[in-house]
């Protein structure tokens, strides 16, 4: 009996990443193993997307050093490897943030990604939820060594809902893989090559597929944006809440981005790595902008590190202490009370007798 159980249990691979050892099933990528450890140990990923088959390997932000290939062959790998597309071996030793080589290469990749990026964050709808923005805060330098004019493209409308701002694209191919997976006949892809390559459709064909709106969610930057939300608000002024509706096309599980009672934007729900949990359809995303369309479940979880959390109170707790208690039973009158410890506050002046905010004249006892 015990033997049978043993047989069924799959053999796990031991892998050590930044000195932390975990066990993962064979076939797990280094990146996904690192994500199980979490925190800083998980390399940044700008192109890999666990839900998109074939994605990854392109942006090179997730490069790591393999200090030992496996127990069987403990030689180090000669080059840094893309952790999203390299599977763990038993006994592998990986260095991510503990490797100077990795940090140096990653800084290089960030510099390359920002080289031709317009940095128009002040007018970009993605600002606040942009992975490139986060990445450059973490690794970028304040200034650039690039002294040439940046590459630009014309903006394109891909149908009524989606705008393509190619200038901001980092060519992660996520949208291409998304379209490949959700539609039978993908109509957009990459044209041309090198630093003049672009995401495009032939002859400005609109992207029409019930699920094509998801390309907006997978885009790590502001290259594909929601035209129904364009310039309407900054994401950090809106509050994300989880909501659902009975949808004949998709799961109907979405996130509403609200300000007051108004629904500004509808997106799919995302996990802690910023990946879509369930694809949603265009109806839910673009057509249902009324709170009455939705059953609201409650505030969505927002990472404390995200700027979106600034306008967002997930668990509002009323403090036990009231102001009166803090003031030793005195009723709060004017803010000037804080000067009770300073010279300004002459005991001869009765603060409660002053109407409106006090100013220096009120304390001019010489008068």
């Amino acid at each position, binding site marked *: 009996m015990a033997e049978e159980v043993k047989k069924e249990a799959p053999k796990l691979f031991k892998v050590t990443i930044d000195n932390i050892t975990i066990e993962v099933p064979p076939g797990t990528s280094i990146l996904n193993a690192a994500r199980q450890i979490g925190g800083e140990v998980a390399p940044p990923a700008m192109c890999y997307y666990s839900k998109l088959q074939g994605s*990854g*390997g*392109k*942006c*090179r*932000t997730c*490069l790591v050093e393999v200090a030992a290939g496996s127990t069987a062959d403990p030689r180090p790998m*000669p*080059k*840094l490897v*893309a952790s999203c*597309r390299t599977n763990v071996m038993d006994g592998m030793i990986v260095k991510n943030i503990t490797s100077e080589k990795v940090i*140096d*290469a990653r800084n*290089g*990749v960030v*510099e*390359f*990604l920002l*080289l*031709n990026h317009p940095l128009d964050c002040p007018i970009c709808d993605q600002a606040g939820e942009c992975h490139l923005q986060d990445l450059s805060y973490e690794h970028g330098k304040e200034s650039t*060594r*690039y002294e*040439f004019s940046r*590459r630009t493209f014309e903006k394109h409308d891909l149908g009524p809902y989606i705008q393509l701002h190619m200038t901001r694209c*980092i*060519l992660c*191919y996520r949208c291409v893989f998304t379209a490949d997976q959700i539609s039978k006949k993908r109509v957009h*892809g*990459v044209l*041309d*090559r*090198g*630093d*003049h*390559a672009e995401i495009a459709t032939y002859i400005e064909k609109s992207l029409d597929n019930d699920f094509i709106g998801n390309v907006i969610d997978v885009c790590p930057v502001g290259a594909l944006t929601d035209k129904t939300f364009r310039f309407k608000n900054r994401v950090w002024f809106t509050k994300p809440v989880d909501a659902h509706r009975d949808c004949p096309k998709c799961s109907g599980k979405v996130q509403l981005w609200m300000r007051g009672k108004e629904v500004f934007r509808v997106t799919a729900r995302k996990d802690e790595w910023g990946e879509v949990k369930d694809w949603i359809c265009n109806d839910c995303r673009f057509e249902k902008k009324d709170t009455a369309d939705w059953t609201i479940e409650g505030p969505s979880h927002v990472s404390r590190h995200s700027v979106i959390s600034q306008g967002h109170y997930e668990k509002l707790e009323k403090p036990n202490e009231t102001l009166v208690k803090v003031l030793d039973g005195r009723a709060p009158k004017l803010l000037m009370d804080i000067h009770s410890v300073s010279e300004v506050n002459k005991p001869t002046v009765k603060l409660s007798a002053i109407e409106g905010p006090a100013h220096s004249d009120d304390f001019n006892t010489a008068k």
Partner: protein
Amino acid sequence: MGRKVLLDKAHIEGIRYYDVYRKNGGYAAVEKALKMDPAAVVEEVKKSGLRGRGGAGFPTGMKWSFIAKPEGVPRHLVCNADESEPGTFKDRYLMEFIPHLLIEGLIVSSWALGSNNTYIYIRGEYAWIVDILEQAITEAKNNGWLGKNIMNTGFDCEIHVQRGAGAYICGEETALIESLEGKRGNPRIKPPFPAVKGVWDRPTVVNNVETLAAVVPIINLGGEEYAKIGVGKSTGTKLISACGNIKKPGVYEIDMTISVEEFIYSDEYCGGIPNGKKLKACIPGGSSVPILPANLLLKTAKGEQRMMTYESLSDGGFATGSMMGSGGFIVFDEDQCVVRHTYTLARFYRHESCGQCSPCREGTGWMEKILKNIEYGSGKMSDIDLLWDIQRRIEGNTICPLGDAAAWPVAAAIRHFRDEFEWHVNNPEESQRRNYGLAHYADERQVVVG
């Protein structure tokens, strides 16, 4: 006089056609090989020590033995005739003048690997060669060397010619496979390697034209006999396409026993530097390999004679050596400007990057712009270190070796010719007016070997 086994008959009148080729011993290798066990053919290739002629120099026999053989899944042999590396034009010569040699090599190799459908992926610009190959294939088929049940062995084989559409990157084997499948020619992320999942996810071997042609003399002579040509791990002969400032540019078959000096100066090969000029530098193996100044080209850092072999050309690593690469031998005389030349190559790599991975996509464009500034008189001294830093961060961090190929020439130019870059920065006007670099790297001698 070096030994020739590939181009020995290329000068025969009409050798392009089947009858003449056959009369001169053609298709003997097919007759011999198809009577052997496929594994025995692979064994001969292993014994021959043949190394891939496409650039990387990987042992061919070993590559063949890696091919996966899952039950019921077809396998494919693909001949890489994309030849787009600047300075390399040897495959073109072979295919144009003695096409049946390649077809014969393909049949033998297909037999060894079990490929019933073999592909030639040819550079799109070689349009006229497609016709030559198609004709050779038809002739071979009409004479029973291709098609069904070849030589009553039960072996079927077809060769298909596919034209590329003008992209250097489609010479990289996985980009080639994508392109062959009708997709955008982006290199694949490895693993899986083509030997396991290649064309249509079937086990595939991709080899260079010259590599596959060399299988013919290997079978005719026997692997051991072939291995006696050349020295050390550089067995057999190598086609070198020589160009630049030499008296006799062209394609030469060398037997890898001669020195670089002999190759450049002797009348049998390049014939020396024309117009009484001196040798300044050379790229010995196609645009991707490091450029060497004359002193390091003719002698290694240890002071030994540098030979035209895989080992000797890479002696000293990248610090003082280079690579055999694809055999594109580009010679510079004292008037040539290394900065201008490096800029030209940077332009090429920027244009040819597929754009998949960020370091290569963005880095190649950046290097090109900086080099342009230096070349056209608006460079800064700090640009040189910046260039070094950019190439360093591209190299080794990309999906395919094109990133490395773009980084290496820049690195080598700065490593060996730094003062020429500095001279450009300090003398912007003069450097533009003269449009050539510093001559002090030049080899003092003019003609050494007679």
